[in-house]
């Protein structure tokens, strides 16, 4: 009797152990995926690198030669206000205007349900910015420029958003170039707070519902508007600020770009 009980304990324990250890591989509820597509625009025009002259809110003409930004830390919002937080680890994306493939990606493993909005971070959170190098692969690899220099080597940290171009308003001594490299995760210095340009955006699907199920994989189309980098709580004038990187003024630009992403439409596939 005793030995049979013991055997039972062993079997049960092994089973529980194996279940705990392999939990990730056991699907309990239905999950699905969601594709996000970012369309970079300038006002009501599509963004074209280098070829088209646009005008900012200050009335300055400009062309764009580079437009890159990180998005991460996704959260899907349900109609009842509850949300699903996506695992942080594998969900860092770098949108690059010159790499169309980077402008669309799929979030997977989302519990089935009806979702009415999404929230995410423009940038790379402080935890990941300080994480061990082995946890920084793909677009986060500071030594591998699949993201060409979205990283400050002299002041360890990611550049969250990079906007570069030319403008007659930029100084001739600077070859009429302007560049905005915005980053700063707010710390890491003996508890002192430094510039924090991490910004969370929340995008409701304009009353629409994304139904996530194994059989239904919605695609959400978002718009990122370069004009909002120039205009928001601050009107950014190239003539006054043609080069902004890690400095106090950068927070104004971060505040501006918080408003750059908008919902366009969705497709159920």
């Amino acid at each position, binding site marked *: 009797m005793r030995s049979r009980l013991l055997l039972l304990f062993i079997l049960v324990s*092994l089973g529980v*152990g194996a279940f705990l250890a392999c939990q990730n591989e056991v699907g309990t509820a239905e999950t699905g995926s969601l594709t996000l597509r970012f369309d970079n625009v300038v006002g009501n025009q599509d963004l074209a690198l280098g070829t088209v002259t646009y005008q900012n809110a200050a009335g300055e003409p400009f062309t764009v030669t580079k437009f890159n930004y990180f998005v991460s830390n996704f959260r899907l919002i349900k109609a009842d206000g509850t949300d699903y937080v996506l695992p942080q680890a594998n969900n860092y994306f770098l949108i690059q205007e010159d790499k169309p493939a980077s402008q669309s990606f799929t979030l997977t493993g989302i519990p089935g349900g009806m979702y009415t909005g999404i929230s995410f971070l423009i940038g790379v959170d402080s935890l990941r910015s300080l994480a*061990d190098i082995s946890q920084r692969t793909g677009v986060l690899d500071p030594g591998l420029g699949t993201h060409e220099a979205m990283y400050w080597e002299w002041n360890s940290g990611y550049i969250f958003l990079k906007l570069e171009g030319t403008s007659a308003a930029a100084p001739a001594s600077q070859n009429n170039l302007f560049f905005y490299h915005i980053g700063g995760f707010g710390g890491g210095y003996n508890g002192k707070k*430094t510039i924090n340009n991490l910004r969370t955006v929340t995008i409701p699907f304009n009353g629409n519902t994304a139904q996530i199920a194994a059989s239904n994989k919605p695609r959400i189309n978002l718009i990122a508007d370069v004009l909002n980098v120039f205009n928001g709580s601050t009107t950014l004038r190239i003539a006054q600020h043609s080069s902004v990187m*890690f400095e106090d003024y950068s927070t104004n630009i971060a505040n501006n770009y918080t408003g750059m992403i908008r919902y366009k439409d969705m497709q159920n596939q």
Partner: protein
Amino acid sequence: MNMRMNLKRGLGGAGLVLGLMACHSTDQEAQPEQLFQQPANFPQPIYALDQNRPTVAGVALGKALFYDGILSRDGSISCAECHNQAYAFTHHQHDVSHGIDNQVGTRNALPIQNLAWASDFFWDGGVHSLDLVPIAPIENPVEMDEKTTNVISKLRASARYPSLFKAAFGSDEINGPRFLQALSQFMLTMVSGNSRYDKWVRKEPGGTLTDDEQAGLTAFRTKCSGCHTGELFTDNRFRNNGLFIQGSKDEGRAHVTELPEDRYTFKVPSLRNVEKTLPYMHDGRFYSLEAVLDHYAENVQRTENLDPLLMQTDKSGQVRLGIALTADEKRQIIAFLKTLTDDQFLRDPRFAVQ
């Protein structure tokens, strides 16, 4: 009953362990060796060794990279260019670093030693992890002027490196984290803890200090150890030591924090092997230890954010800048500082160019 409960818990644990083992293939390519040794008189390391413990193959790869100009744009500059072993891995006789195309930087190359105990690297602490350090000189236009991406491409295309990466990491994949971890592994093994002072502290053979050196140590502990603390001789903090603001008017740590209270503050450097690491200060302005002590005794300037330890109020209420030092004390402190020279480290073939 109690026994049975305990048995059950114990077996549950065993089941969990077995379950975990079933999901993870055991892959033990590189066995850690005792390549990193903590001297008995040192504190616990700051670097998370568990995440990147030096292995024989990893260190060999890191050393190969350290001495290879492939890290620079035109192949001319290796790490060793500015970090020469004989001078505790500093750029001997160069006030500021001399890099590619004969260009010069704005700061003096810091020694590479005992980096497992360091936090916030470079004079301004702009890099917060040892693993991220090599990217800075590689990408600096006046040092190696290369893109790390391109270094990775060159390593992939080389005849030499794929097999070294395979030996170190189990496969010949070459990527940024592996490249950086290998360099860290080599640098972590560069521990200097066998100076005459260390032997004296640990009561080992050869650990004798002369009367002057002991008097110097006593004066040092009273007058210098407020900043040059502990067995690493640094508190790993950033301070303004009252240098005359000149040349590039370097704002130091404020460059990376943008905080006014950090203006003109720089890393407190370790003093190990200080006899060999001349010239001194962030811009290498002093070429002798005598000049350094003269600065602290007589020339401290009251600039923005001057460290409070260099502004002492005497009994009459007068503020005295700097540190009061007699000629004898200076001589004795220098005698003591020279006992921090670790000849074994400076000549160790494990760190030497082949």
